């Protein structure tokens, strides 16, 4: 068991003919992901890494019976590509693209509310069910199959923690990089919900960071709804108020929420221990299992 993706997931790569798209299609195929089609307007009939390319997502989905897509389309066209994927419709859309104009994402998010599709990202490393499938740019080799779910706003921080988990023999059921943009599809709560419902997930690691109130809301959700234990981590404790660091989600607002302190205490109050260092997070997971 796993969450959202597995062996059977049939994946379209949108933007497969671009440099990133091509490279990561090869990586995904190598990992064993069932990449069944590419979609690039005007490139129908071509092949990339042995994968047939179609002009539209509709064609690709129909001809190859696909149910998911990974989007590597450049920012200027990514909003349109996401609408195309949502309207196909597909069950899962993973938006890797960084730098999509926020108003475009806001409109995509609006459409998302009318669908049953899971959107992951944008500006995220993707999702992986170790040993089965990865959709995105996560380095497959650091993951190992197991019973810990992982949700993170940050890419390399995820890798850091996964690497520690794996090196201590703790495998992962599924890891979801939900992305660090101001507006994202699947958020902490939705991801927690999926792991709570997954019998193969015995603990969840949740990596948050300063800015916004998503972690506080997730803490409330954990308190009320989660039976699966959660270990937390919050990046940005030392970020000075008002300074932006990296992606736009990481802004400390002037008010009481959004700070590392507020997030950490919310999670701890909800029974989710928050590690001071990535290593401590892994130790906490060991305790929870």
């Amino acid at each position, binding site marked *: 068991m796993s969450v959202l993706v597995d062996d059977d997931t049939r994946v379209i790569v949108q933007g497969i003919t671009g440099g990133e798209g091509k490279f*990561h299609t090869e*990586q995904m195929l190598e990992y064993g992901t069932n990449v069944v089609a590419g979609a690039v307007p005007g490139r129908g009939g071509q092949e990339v890494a042995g994968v047939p390319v179609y002009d539209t997502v509709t064609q690709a989905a129909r001809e190859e019976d696909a149910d998911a897509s990974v989007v590597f389309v450049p*920012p*200027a066209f990514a909003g349109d590509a996401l609408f195309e994927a949502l309207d196909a419709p597909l069950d899962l859309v993973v938006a890797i693209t960084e*730098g*999509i*104009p*926020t*108003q*475009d*994402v*806001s*409109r995509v*998010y*609006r*459409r998302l509310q009318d669908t049953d599709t899971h959107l992951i990202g944008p500006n995220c490393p993707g999702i992986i069910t170790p040993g089965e499938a990865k959709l995105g*740019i*996560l*380095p497959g*080799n*650091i993951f190992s199959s197991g019973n810990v779910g992982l949700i*993170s*706003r*940050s*890419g*390399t*921080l*995820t*890798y*850091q923690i996964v*690497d520690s988990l794996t090196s201590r023999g703790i495998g992962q059921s599924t890891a979801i990089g939900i992305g*660090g943009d*101001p*507006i994202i599809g699947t958020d902490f709560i939705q991801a927690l919900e999926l792991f709570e419902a997954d019998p193969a997930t015995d603990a969840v690691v949740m*990596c948050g*960071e*300063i800015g*916004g*109130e*998503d972690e506080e809301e997730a803490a409330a959700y954990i308190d009320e709804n989660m039976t699966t234990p959660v270990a937390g*981590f919050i*990046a*940005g*404790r*030392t*970020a000075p108020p008002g*300074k*932006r*660091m*990296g*992606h*736009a*989600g*990481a802004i400390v607002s*002037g*008010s009481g929420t959004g700070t590392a302190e507020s997030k950490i205490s919310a999670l701890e109050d909800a029974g989710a221990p928050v590690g*001071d*260092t*990535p*290593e401590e997070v892994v130790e906490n997971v060991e305790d929870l299992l």
Partner: protein
Amino acid sequence: MRIHEYQAKGLFAEAGIPTPESELARTVDEAVEVADDISYPVAIKAQVHVGGRGKAGGIKLVENTEEAREAADDILGMDLKGYHVDRVLVEEAVDFTNELYIGVTMDRGEGKPVAMVSTRGGVNIEEVAEEDPDAIAREHIDPAFGMHDYQARKVVYEAGIDAGLAGDVASILKTLYNLWEDSDASDAEINPLMVTADDDIIAADAVFNVDGDALFRHPDLEEMEETAADDDLEAKAQEYGFEGSNYVRLSGDVGIIGNGAGLVMTTLDLVDYYGGSPANFLDIGGGAKAERVANALDLVFSDENADAVVFNIFGGITRGDEVANGINDALDQFDEIPKPVIVRLAGTNAEEGMEILNEELVQVEKTLEDAVQAAVAAAEEVEA
């Protein structure tokens, strides 16, 4: 991306929002000439990207030519909260009876735009938001439909704007929203929106920030972008392409370079956790091109405060040996490594990478924790 008050007012005026008579001046003579043309009293306003200009002495009201010259002379060239003032807006002083606030921004939590109106204009609206949230009326906008006319009216009436002004304020708010949407703005605010004795309404100050990711479709706005020349290191960072929030200068003594915002923030946190103090945040992003690595090192080496550097890379898709070669190539570009550099590589082929690294030039550590502790210790040693 922020634009200056005078640029924002230019956009507002073009969209049909009333603004005071004004002109930009770059010299004292120009400022005086413009001030004379506009009848006194006139305001001389520093054009820099900081809030609270008035309190900091960046805005002066003058009654005659002499005062205008004195004020322009004071303000032009001054250092305002670290920003050099090279332009002033010379503007008709509006005789107001009331100050309102209107604004449009993206509510990230809701994923949709929000329009805000308050009768508490002319003050720091963030403070109002915190102390008396109900003093600001809010209306969320469906980004698919844009702002309906009724929504502009509704939020204006909910804010308690006088009936006699409500229609005009709603109409300006609608215009502001459309400008916000059409320009891919992130924030558009008029504070204060002044009401005169004749119930005329005038945008007396303006904030307009544009989504940097959307500049590609707004070449006119892109032209307004300015390099923040106010800090040498930040200017250098911009030159090196560590644009926007990828480089943030701090006040500590441990320089920090890494890939990925979350991991770099975590490195900062660990420096603090182990008793050190971060000199900066620097996210070099994906890949490990030698030039980019060299630029990052040069930037941190240039920071006088930084006494040691911790370089923390998680390989991900890029292989550790490639990263190591990149670092070696980068280090080759320096005649001398001026500060201790502690490198930690992780992820794919990390061990091969660590073997490749030139340990004569850098100290290699296996774990993040060890690397940070080593850097904190090295910085302390230099200090001592």
